[in-house]
């Protein structure tokens, strides 16, 4: 049951910092810029510069690096896996042999580069969610998506769905934990048995969870209707997003750095 409590990806940590106070749109676009740059860079030094840029942002955000790096834990396996694949599967100049496995210089370089790419990718997105409250994040997404309204993208509806989903993640996690505990108290066993038995053992968790989620969705829909919710048209915002000077300078800086690293390296 500990597993459910330790999900830090997507968690928001409130702090009073420059990064927190930036406009969410700026943060999302900056993140996108960094991600695009990550896939354009081909040299190690480029990753180093971009990595430093992200690290400095983490320090400015006042969020303890511990939390940011915790986001890496779930994908550590993927990073190691890709590193190994690249290490052994790339043809080239051999530097070490281990039985039938060959490690090549090219493989080593490529593996490390890819690992760095994933590493920085996760750090950047973790920082985005750690330093932006879910509400302002979806506000930002709504405003960004509304640019595409003319091709029929329902920006408000998407944002509303995201808000609701984000809002209910902790609730559902908590509920899953509670139901698990209740069923364990009734004699259920989630820890032993083969994979089929384990899958079958999930039924006592999933059915109550779904029943409760549907009931909750129903209640939420009625509550929203009672508050006269009728979609995004003509809806005003309590928090208006405004681009300020610091947003412009932060965005310019990010764009400059990303363009520089992707062109030069």
């Amino acid at each position, binding site marked *: 049951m500990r597993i459910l409590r330790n999900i830090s990806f997507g968690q928001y940590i409130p702090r009073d910092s420059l990064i927190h106070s930036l406009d969410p749109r700026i943060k999302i676009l900056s993140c996108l810029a960094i991600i695009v740059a990550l896939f354009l860079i081909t040299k190690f030094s480029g990753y180093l510069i971009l990595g430093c840029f992200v690290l400095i942002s983490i320090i400015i955000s006042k969020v303890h690096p511990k939390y940011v790096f915790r986001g890496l834990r779930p994908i550590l396996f993927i990073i190691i896996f890709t590193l190994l694949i690249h290490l052994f599967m790339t043809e080239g100049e051999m530097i070490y042999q281990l039985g039938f496995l060959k490690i090549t210089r090219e493989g080593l370089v490529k593996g490390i580069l890819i690992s760095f790419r994933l590493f920085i990718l996760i750090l950047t997105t973790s920082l985005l969610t750690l330093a932006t409250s879910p509400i302002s994040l979806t506000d930002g997404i709504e405003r960004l998506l509304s640019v595409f309204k003319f091709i029929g993208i329902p920006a408000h509806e998407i944002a509303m769905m995201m808000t609701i989903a984000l809002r209910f993640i902790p609730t559902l996690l908590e509920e899953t934990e509670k139901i698990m505990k209740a069923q364990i108290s009734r004699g259920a*066993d989630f820890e032993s048995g083969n994979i089929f038995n384990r899958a079958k053992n999930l039924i006592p968790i999933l059915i109550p969870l779904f029943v409760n989620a549907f009931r909750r969705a129903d209640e939420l829909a009625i509550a929203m209707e009672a508050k006269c919710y009728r979609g995004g048209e003509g809806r005003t915002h309590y928090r208006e997003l405004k681009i300020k000077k610091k947003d412009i300078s932060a965005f310019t800086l990010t764009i400059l750095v990303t363009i520089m690293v992707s062109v030069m390296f």
Partner: protein
Amino acid sequence: MFIHLENICFTYSLGMPFETEVLKNINLDIDNGEFIGLIGHTGCGKTTLIQHFNGLLTPTSGKIYVEGIDLNKKGTNLRLVRQKIGLVFQYPENQLFEETIYQEIAFGPRKLGLSEEKIEKRVREALKMVDLDYNLYIERSPFSLSGGEMRRVALASILSIRPKMLILDEPTANLDPQGRDNILFEIEKIHYNFGMTVVLVSHNMEKVAETVKRLLVMHRGEIIIDGAPQEIFEKHANDLVKMGLGLPQVTECMHKLKAKGKDVYAGVLTVDDAESELLKKMKRTTKK
């Protein structure tokens, strides 16, 4: 001694930004056959504490023994312990999942690997304990029941494991007064007829206090008062009010009389007790 707790401390989300100390140095002994009420304000750690009893939570520090078995030693078979201690969660109707009530109640015994005959016997027994008719109910879907019935089925699904001890977290929450009285009556019956050890967790003084024989009062993660309900309501009335727990209406009334200088015993729990106490005192004054 059935359960023995030694210096239990528990902290939620240890090492996370929202770290909170929920239990502080809890020492507690529960004997076989006791009928205990655990009361305290919402968020005082009641639910967290009872989840330690059957090993669902592991204390940050301290030791728990159930019938002499150390719960947190490596290799302790917690499933055996959970079979001895039936824990009924708050809103237990939210964990129903089977197609029929029979299957629902048979879930626990089936997990114990019993034969089909024995399972049927236990389902009968459990339904009887919660006063539901076997033939009328077994084929029905648990989702077609009323709130009170669902709760009784959920209770039966724990009773079918035949625990030695029953812990109920807010068993009367969200029920109408009649449903509440019914459930409390079933629980009392189970205690008296089967000699089961019962712990009743609640934030509501009324009713619970008059049902149980020993009362534990929790406040901010500590058990601060432990004793017979009458004694507690007589001596610690002010503390309880200060904690925001309040007293049963009739007890409060007696305390008010006492504050006005009347010589009455304030530790009464029911209207009947209050009546006889008052009559007794009135007779004495008229005789004088």
